[in-house]
């Protein structure tokens, strides 16, 4: 096999072809142009909307406080910011349903590239223990969320954070060949280009207002009760069967087990977030979310060597007492097994804003 022959050089031509291909891919998908027309309701588009709202949020003379988290994060920034005059804090959020610590790392890098924008970043957790049913390290959804945020330099860290080879291949594709990751979105765009552009324009004009003023579930679970002996749950009539099963599962099934994998995952990604901010004046405040409308009477004993407790012991984070929001664990404040309702969000936001203000005021060196 002669790879170079006269004016024909196989390596040179194939190398050039790959270079041109990556240039085309970068031109279309790394310049920000395509991200600006992503389907707003896609996972990546949804996340981009949140990040854009936060990046465009004006910062005034108040302390900037940002929350990460998933759909369980009950902070309504509209409520918390009503108290800005007394708390001295202005709240923003990039809590996106379905995101995990791995996503938060890249999201924070995007909204705060120099690690100097926020006085505090709030990290909500389901539990201070490393308990989980799911192996979040292999969560494929993260790739869909993060495609627009990944750079070529992220290749080793991001790809190797997935334990399974199929997901590693998928992750590598999202880092190297953006077009591959956007393929479905691009084909959907080709199907209805005008509708997409119109929807994107509407989102750009109104997304901030829509998200900021969104009204959450107004129903509540008042009247709910649990007989722990017979393991039966009485629930309000309005609740649909799916949500009933979800509540029964949360309350009556075994709690998630201690997971070494989950501990490793948390240490890796929460640790990476903290490492990025090492030396900055940004404080990290971790807290436990209200656990649910009713709490099981025999919770597993706390693990003193869990990831977040170790971070707290090392002085890397401020850990609010686990019972800070226990008073909100009432059926009237929940709309389902896991999420606070409109009223719960209101009360949670007021309490959190007060706690953050108090903690920052007493924290040495806080901005």
């Amino acid at each position, binding site marked *: *096999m*002669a*790879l*170079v*022959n*006269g004016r*024909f*050089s*196989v390596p*040179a*031509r*194939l190398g*050039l*072809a*790959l*270079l*041109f*291909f990556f*240039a*085309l*891919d970068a031109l279309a998908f790394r310049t920000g142009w395509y991200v600006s027309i992503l389907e707003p309701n896609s996972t990546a588009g949804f996340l981009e909307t949140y990040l854009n709202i936060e990046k465009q949020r004006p910062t005034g003379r108040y302390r900037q406080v940002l929350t990460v988290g998933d759909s369980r994060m009950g902070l309504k920034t509209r409520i918390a910011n009503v108290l800005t005059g007394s708390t001295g804090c202005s709240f923003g959020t990039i809590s996106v349903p379905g995101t995990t610590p791995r996503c938060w790392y890249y999201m924070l890098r995007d909204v705060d590239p120099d690690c100097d924008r926020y006085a505090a970043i709030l990290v909500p957790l389901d539990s201070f223990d490393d308990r989980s049913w799911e192996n979040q390290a292999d969560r494929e959804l993260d790739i869909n969320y993060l495609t627009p945020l990944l750079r070529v330099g992220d290749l080793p860290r991001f790809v190797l954070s997935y334990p399974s080879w199929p997901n590693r*291949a998928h992750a590598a594709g999202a880092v190297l*060949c953006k*077009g*591959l990751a956007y*393929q479905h979105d*691009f*084909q959907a765009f*080709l*199907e209805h280009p005008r509708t997409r552009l119109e929807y994107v324009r509407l989102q750009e004009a109104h997304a901030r207002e829509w998200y900021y003023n969104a009204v959450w579930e107004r129903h509540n679970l008042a009247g709910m009760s649990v007989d722990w002996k017979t393991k039966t749950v009485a629930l309000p009539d309005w609740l649909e069967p799916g949500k009933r099963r979800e509540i029964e599962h949360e309350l009556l099934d075994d709690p998630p087990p201690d997971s070494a994998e989950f501990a490793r995952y948390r240490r890796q990604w929460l640790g990476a977030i903290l490492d990025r901010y090492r030396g900055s004046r940004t404080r990290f405040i971790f807290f436990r979310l209200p656990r649910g409308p009713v709490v099981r009477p025999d919770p597993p004993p706390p693990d003193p060597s869990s990831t977040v407790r170790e971070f707290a012991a090392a002085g890397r984070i401020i850990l609010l007492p686990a019972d800070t929001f226990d008073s909100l664990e009432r059926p009237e404040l929940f709309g389902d097994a896991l999420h606070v309702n409109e009223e719960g969000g209101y009360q949670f936001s007021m309490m959190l804003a007060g706690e953050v203000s108090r903690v920052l005021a007493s924290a040495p060196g806080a901005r």
Partner: protein
Amino acid sequence: MLFHTPQFFAFFLVVLALFYSLPRSASRWILLAASYFFYMCWNAKFVLLIIALTAIDYTAAMWMRRLPTGGKRKAALAMSLAANIGFLGFFKYYNFLAGNLAWALARPFDAFALHIILPMGISFHTFQSMSYVIDVYRGEQEVITDVVDYALYIAFFPQLVAGPIVRARHFFADLYHWRAPGAREILRGTLLVVFGLLKKLAIADQFARIADAFFRDPAAHPGYLAAWSGVIAFSLQIFFDFSGYTDMAIGLAQILGFHFPENFRRPYLARSITEFWRRWHISLSTWLRDYLYIPLGGNRHGRWQTYRNLLLTMLLGGLWHGASWNFVIWGGYHGALLSVERLLGIRERKRWSFLDPLRVALTFALASISWVFFRAATLHDSLYILRRLFSGPHGHILWWHWQLWFVLAVLVLAVLEESRGWFERLPDAPAWVYASAIAVFLFCLELIGFTGRAVPFVYFQF
């Protein structure tokens, strides 16, 4: 292990590395082992069938070598043909014949049926074997005395499962006078592989989704526009699927230093069905011509004999594709069209005239109508779809707008290729032109290549 899967490319890279790094004396063994491994990835047991047929045909040819003339030589040929046709007949046609027999005896359709798995590629490698043995019998092909060489000819993985059907004299000329491919050949081979992938994943599989939806339930898509768009989607699927596979096969073989014949030459630009068959699945149509049509008498015995021979050849060509009345009708339809064109004196012409675009459109429509029989699940479905093509409300086109524009762009490129031959000249073009073409192909693959569940090649079922 399909050609368009990462596993295949990993396999090919390993084969390539071994083939070029080990001594020449080992290269045939490497290719043979790789070919059997490739086949066994689909179904390990059926490799025994290929080995058995190889042994029979090899022995028959060796026998003929010792018997230059006479009845025993003919017996050797008969034994070989009986084995090939016997295996093919059993695996491919037994249930078809059993079903028809049951119908004739008013028994349940599956009264005599057996659960038979069709060995992948059996139609291709048996035809290849038969052409070798017939050529040896006719004295047109030297007997291959080395069994490894002969086994490699039958099992060579780039063409094992869906052709092209390579003639022995071409294959052994490459094998016995093998020379390492030059840089230009490797560039051409690579271009063909990427182009084949593009045809398969970005075009065929796109249209497969439309065709599958339409043919699965034609009644759910009312209107003649829906029917035509569903049928044309299949016309595009089958062409881009099969020619994409062939391009990859030719390209892979070229990188290994082998030269396969051209199998498709823009058949949808044909101005008649006669011309269509000179451009579509060329290795099969020439096989049918050389081993069936001409032995039947070809056009040497007058007009009616010619029509009969055309019809018989195409009927058997139809049956070669599959065991059902649909394929028989498909073949008969093409045979009838070829006869009508001969009757009308329609001949292939070199120069294009201003009416030719109309002729191309008509030929494409006629070919598309034939694909209805090819794709529909039953004869009843075929007739229903045919009625739908020419009657009823207009309905709506099943394609997205961008797919229409995409096909139009492909058509323009095909017309330009027909007149300018740009694609063949690409390996000779300046490096930046060649690199840009590959980059654009890869970019299109990235954006519109179908990356869901791998869709098998249509012709793998034959």
